[in-house]
């Protein structure tokens, strides 16, 4: 049987990464290197107000004193931060403009990715902020949203147009001192998305940011800030892809969400950065800090992620449940194949009374990959009647991959209930053969089993995303049978 398994495993057909193309565009790119001048230059490029530069410099000086975190279950090759370029923007692009001003090559690029920047052409109403390398090139449906009082724009624009909101909220959930990659991001972030929902407003369409890395030897460092005032609601989607390259590229993002009383932010991610080839060459290093705070009573944040890409993923979308009766959710499917590594999970910090959190994590590992769930559930002393339920499942394909679970539970309140369940299962040859015997090919059998396994999480995604995510799961696991 060993023989058979090895045979099938070795048939791993270099995953079909259809977003691996590169667009030839003239860029304005900084030479590689990182120092205070680079930080100043980025800020100057964007004509930022003084307070922003100060924030960046404080972050940079703090970062210099920090060390790469080494606690994750990851083998991270040494990253030389001087080899990376910290700013690359399409030359034609000075900032988000009207569609007619967007470089046709860029339009084509996003069309190819299935993201139309043309509002007329979009069948479904999803507003998009399209970010390529270091800048946002176009935000759609801005006017429509503005009619509802919603601000949806690139981070650069927000810094210029809404400095008071930025001053008040940026760094309020993820301070510039938070961790190595968040500090780095705070110093050199180049763009990202900003969204503000005024009191009582429910976004009339889904909002999304699409991140694309295009240029070589650059890193992408974007920041997203979402503020939901009392009683507001938004469903936010995030997608990302990158060309196939032999070199690793760094992506270090920060997402902050602030949710007031009775407001609800639903944040969904389909992460499909280039994962590297079947031998583990190339791929994106994805180090992301995502955190939201439920400030008001009955506020809610729900994180849903489907992580299939990146060579290395280090990511823990978290909720600080401060308001009484606030709710946090984390739903995750993380797939690793070939030599991919993922260390992902969440932190649920219960501070308010009657706060509730649910964690559903589905890890799927194949090939030689390593997939870890790492989660913290913390209940502070005064968080009366806090509730948490965690379900962490691992599915293994083959016997050369690893699945690990690191749950941390800290409960300081006697009236709280924290439940943790974990399972590990394997797609067996017998299951595959049973499907084969009914006429279902091995690839399709894996697709069926994996989608069945991840169903609970996929169901939480907005419709179009769910379909895309299903296909993605199958493609990511192509050729990996055990």
């Amino acid at each position: 049987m060993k023989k058979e398994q090895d045979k099938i495993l070795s048939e791993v057909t270099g995953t079909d990464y259809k977003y691996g193309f590169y667009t030839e565009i003239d860029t304005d790119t900084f030479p590689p290197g990182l120092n205070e001048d680079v930080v100043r230059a980025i800020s100057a490029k964007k004509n930022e107000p003084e307070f922003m530069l100060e924030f960046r410099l404080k972050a940079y000086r703090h970062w210099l004193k920090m060390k790469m975190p080494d606690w994750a279950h990851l083998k991270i090759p040494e990253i030389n931060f001087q080899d990376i370029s910290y700013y690359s923007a399409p030359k034609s692009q000075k900032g988000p403009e009207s569609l007619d001003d967007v470089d046709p090559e860029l339009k084509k690029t996003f069309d190819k990715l299935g993201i139309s920047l043309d509002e007329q052409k979009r069948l479904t109403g999803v507003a998009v902020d399209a970010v390529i390398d270091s800048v946002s090139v176009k935000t759609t449906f801005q006017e429509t949203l503005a009619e509802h009082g919603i601000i949806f724009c690139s981070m650069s624009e927000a810094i210029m147009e809404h400095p008071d909101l930025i001053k008040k909220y940026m760094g309020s959930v993820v301070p510039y001192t938070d961790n190595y990659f968040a500090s780095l991001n705070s110093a050199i972030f180049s763009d990202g998305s900003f969204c503000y929902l005024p009191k009582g407003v429910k976004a009339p369409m889904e909002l999304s940011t699409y991140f694309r890395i295009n240029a070589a030897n650059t890193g992408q460092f974007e920041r997203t800030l979402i503020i939901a005032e009392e009683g507001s609601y938004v469903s936010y989607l995030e997608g990302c892809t990158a060309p196939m390259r032999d070199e690793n590229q760094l992506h270090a993002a920060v997402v902050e969400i602030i949710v007031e009383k009775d407001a609800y932010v639903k944040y969904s991610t389909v992460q499909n950065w280039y994962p590297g080839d079947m031998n583990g060459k190339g791929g994106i290093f994805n180090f992301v800090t995502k955190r939201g705070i439920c400030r008001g009573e009955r506020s809610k944040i729900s994180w849903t992620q489907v992580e299939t890409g990146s060579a290395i993923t280090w990511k823990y979308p978290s909720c600080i449940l401060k308001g009484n009766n606030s709710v946090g959710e984390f739903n995750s499917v993380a797939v690793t194949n070939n030599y991919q590594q993922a260390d992902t999970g969440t932190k649920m910090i219960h501070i308010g009374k009657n706060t509730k959190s649910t964690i559903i994590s589905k890890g799927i590992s194949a090939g030689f990959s390593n997939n870890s769930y790492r989660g913290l559930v913390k209940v502070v002393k005064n968080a009366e009647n806090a509730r948490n339920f965690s379900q962490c499942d691992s599915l293994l394909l083959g016997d050369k991959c690893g699945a690990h679970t690191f749950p941390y539970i800290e409960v300081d309140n006697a009236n709280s209930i924290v439940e943790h369940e974990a399972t590990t299962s394997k797609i067996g040859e017998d299951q595959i053969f049973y499907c084969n015997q009914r006429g279902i090919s091995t690839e399709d059998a894996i697709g069926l089993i994996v989608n069945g396994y991840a169903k609970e999480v996929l169901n939480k995604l907005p419709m179009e995303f769910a379909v895309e995510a299903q296909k993605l799961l199958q493609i990511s696991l192509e050729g990996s049978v055990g």
Partner: protein
Amino acid sequence: MKSMLSIKDLRASIEDKEILKGITLEVNEGEVHAIMGPNGSGKSTLASLVAGKELADVTGGSITYLGKNLFDLNPEERSKAGIFLGFQYPIEIPGVTMVNFLKAALNEHRKHKGLEPLSAKDFLKLLREKKDLVEIDSKLTNRSVNAGFSGGEKKKNEIFQMAMLEPKLAILDETDSGLDIDALKIVANGVNKLKRKDNATIVITHYQRLLDYIIPDYVHVLFDGRIVKSGGKELALELEKKGYEWIKNQVNGN
């Protein structure tokens, strides 16, 4: 009469131990064959080789199915070519509902025949029809494949799948064991209803009881990797009376 399955001097080993020691078996369209034999004699090994499971290494002989070398086809191709195996131990697939599983299987079979996938409506109609045929509990089709099914439900589910896929050659490996007497009748009845002039059935069983309901044209006794005796349906009765000792003595006596 047209040959359906022709097995010639088939030899197979598992980890260098010879399990099948030269099996020859001819099955024609329209026929029902029963294979009996003591535990460990190689019945399931033979069935799984026909279905394409790479459990045993074939060391000699041939299997021809509808004129084609069966070894050229992978398991899903064999399925689509009309070979169905009712598993002795049906496999559980948590998370995959029966409905999704059958839809995938059926549409693969249809694609193979150049047909469009069934519409959701027609699929559900077919599902209901076939469910009635094997009197399977309606709720079972909304559950995951075999997961948590009782022993008898699993066996019924095999016949249900067979009814959905309408195979040319069905091999039922001890589908009767673990069934209560009513379920046995239902299963046998299902098999009989699916019988046509141009398909064939091989039933593997330990009990002559089943053969009261599914009347075989031939009964074969598999003993230590060989078919040591073949005959009509009366052979099953004789076996029931005299036990395998009788065969053993006959074989050794030769």
